[in-house]
């Protein structure tokens, strides 16, 4: 296991660019965050990126129970100059995504912003996303897979009362085709196999509006694995991350809006090595 202490400076740089002439149904979004990492007196640079092109096939402008079908291609990654520092795999995938909102908007009784009176109540039970994906995933150190995935997602963002207990999650079934894995080749375990994944997250408001706690867990279970893989502990993985985020009322020095401290432990396939990483993040922008 490798232990790292990473300091991450995040410069908010977010943009969405509708494809020329096709804003009606297609959107390209890109998000890039440069990073500076330090570990064992070594410095390293990196970049986190998230790119997506989504094309809406079917949609409606319904007010309640809205449903949308999209074709999407996305790519995420967090490459670093030194391969050992990266904690997230490079992923590129494409597929179909069906979104079902469990939401009906309320109808306000008036236009007084400080009145909470509603002419008609609404509800918000979150959103379900069903997806069918073809995926290529690659650990920066070298291992890579092709996968077909069927997944169920659920997001819920309200936090009043005890609602923070409700997680947002993605549960997925993957059929994995090993593209390259030195470890698996060593164990003679390069056949296709089934993988079940569960990613979940919580955000817990603490002491008012400034401080929040966060949990990010990701599990995977590979089935029908040779004994050698099971014995090596490579048939299951877990990634557990938790931390705190503090948002300042007024930006400090005019540009520091929030900071966060996270610690993560474990691995996200196709990585084979567990690692513990401390993340210190400063959210800076003008």
């Amino acid at each position, binding site marked *: 296991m490798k232990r790292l202490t990473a300091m991450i400076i995040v410069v908010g740089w977010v943009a969405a660019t*509708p494809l020329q002439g096709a804003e009606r149904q297609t959107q390209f979004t890109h998000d890039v965050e440069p990073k500076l990492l330090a570990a064992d007196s070594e410095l390293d640079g990196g970049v986190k990126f998230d790119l997506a092109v989504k094309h809406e096939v079917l949609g409606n402008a319904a007010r309640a129970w809205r449903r949308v079908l999209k074709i999407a291609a*996305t790519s995420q990654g967090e490459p670093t100059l030194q391969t050992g520092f990266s904690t997230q795999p490079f992923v590129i995938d494409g597929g179909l995504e069906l979104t079902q909102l469990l939401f009906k908007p309320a109808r306000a009784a008036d236009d007084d912003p400080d009145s909470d009176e509603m002419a008609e109540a609404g509800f918000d039970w979150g*959103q379900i996303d069903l997806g069918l994906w073809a995926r290529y995933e690659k650990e920066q150190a070298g291992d890579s897979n092709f996968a077909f995935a069927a997944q169920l997602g659920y*997001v819920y963002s309200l936090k009043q009362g005890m609602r923070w207990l409700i997680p947002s999650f993605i549960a997925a079934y993957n059929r994995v085709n090993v593209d390259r894995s030195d470890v698996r080749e060593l164990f003679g375990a390069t056949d296709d196999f089934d993988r079940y994944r569960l990613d979940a997250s919580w955000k817990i408001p603490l002491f*008012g509006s400034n401080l929040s706690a966060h949990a990010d867990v990701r599990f995977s279970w590979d089935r029908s694995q040779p004994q050698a893989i099971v014995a090596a502990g490579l048939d299951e993985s877990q990634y557990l991350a938790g931390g705190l985020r503090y948002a300042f009322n007024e930006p400090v020095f005019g540009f520091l809006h929030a900071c966060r401290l996270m610690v993560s432990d474990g691995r996200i396939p196709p990585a084979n090595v567990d690692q513990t990483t401390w993340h210190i993040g400063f959210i800076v922008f003008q």
Partner: protein
Amino acid sequence: MRINCHAHTFNLQSVFSEETLEILLHRVVRWDFPEWLLKIVADQLGKLITLGGEYNDPDRLAREIMKAVVASDEYRGLLESLSASERVKLEGIDVDGLEELASLALGGLFKTVGKALLKNDGDARTRNIVDILDFVLVGTQPSVRQVTETVMKQLGSGRDRDGLITLTMDITKGGDADEAQFLKLLADTSQTVLSYPGRIFPFVAVNPRRDRHFSIMERALNSQGFVGVKIYPCLGFLPASPAMDQVYAYCQQRSVPVLMHCNEGGFYRSPGDIPNCNPAHWRDILDRFPDLKICFGHFGGGDHLTERPVTAGSWTETIIQLMREYPNAYADISYHAGPMDGGDAEAHYFANLKELINDPETRDHVLFGTDFFLVRHRLREKSFWQFFEGRLTKAEFKRIAEQNPRRYLGLPVGNKPAGWAIENYARFLWDHQQKLALESPVPWVEPLIEKLYGSGSKLPKPGLSLNWNRANRVHVHTYKALKVQLRGSPKFATSGKTRLHRLDYWNKGLESPAIWANRLSNESHKLDAWFLNNDFAHLKGMTSMKAVNRLRAAFDDETLAMWELAAVCESIYRSTRDVEGG
């Protein structure tokens, strides 16, 4: 504070009716523009008139005018005079595609065409295709608020910012025709008072052909922030009548200023109605109401002042006589574009004007005005100001743009207290102070508020100005939709600067990217659904898919504040009903 005493901030939508179209057509055909351009505008107006019930669409008017302009041989000829790079930009305009163009994009196209064709932007002497296009563009702004913003941006913005008398119009067939539309115009205009406290002075239009004209006027002056009365007799009534006498008596008793349209142009119902605006009618009226403050708009027509001496027997000469005889007879110089042709016209005009401004008998009776935006087909508001400032001395301009307007309006001057209508105006601001949240009041307002409500009474400090405004339904509903995610339940006024990364949904970088992507989709759809469920519609050319894509990008941007998200929403939604409390 300098004041433009003659301006209009209604949009065509707010006065558009079958009656208006015919009247507008009468006006357009007399504009001093190339025949081919006038023909295009007149043809489109004529077509709209024949559509009968489908006339209420100024956006369509703008679209059709642009289509016809771009398709015309004359426009092609103008392109030939441009450089190759400018020409390429304009030659690509797809005439058929204009139908599908959203209003905002159409506005951009007007600007592109205008910019390329306008060679000398600041010169009041030039008259250009862009003027007429821009006139239509201003008139087809979606709301009175936006027309007002257009003019206010061009006025001085120091501590003692420039002000504006904004004149409403009531073009009616009579009875109770189009009353809801007229009341909406008054309500929308009233809202603009709250946007620029102490700078916008609205005059309520009185047309005795409307059954309820008197009660509507009373309400406007008593509780809607209106400070004067506008009359336009060539819309089909005589200035002297029992009904109008009742209006004059009311205004005289309360020192409410009246302004009458007074030149032989402008809008009229039929040519036979033009003499209704003759100032000669007023000798009798002023004999009976000697303390009535009356301003003859346009001074009887600026062209009479371009002759020296002033044209004998002209309306302008009559007005000058009235000024000498009656202490409360005023005239404004709005729409006086004649001297801008230069030469003798300009020299004579300013010789006459300076004489009037310096003559002890008339110097207190001349007011500065521009006729925004109805003069826009000639030149910009800013150019009009600059033209007169550049040709009068500082003291002369101060007299007509500052000292005389204050007296005419009844603003407090030294020990002279504010007039009845101005006191009501201050009360209106006080009663609606929760809706101010825009500019801070100009200096004259504060002492009056203290006088009316006691020492230390102050109107609230401005918030985010127009960017986060409780009088703006889009802003209010951006807040209402997301209020549930704002921790600590901040009030509307204090939540405009709240960054989106402080809302409950924000978990970027702290969860799997796939979950975050789903969360963004969720927030965007919910906000879109909220707007559609609360009496909003997408702007023309916008769809739910497009709206959600735009919102998604905003929700993903931690640098944005609530007011900036509201600005994004303004580019997507329009209200389908009025703001309450107008």
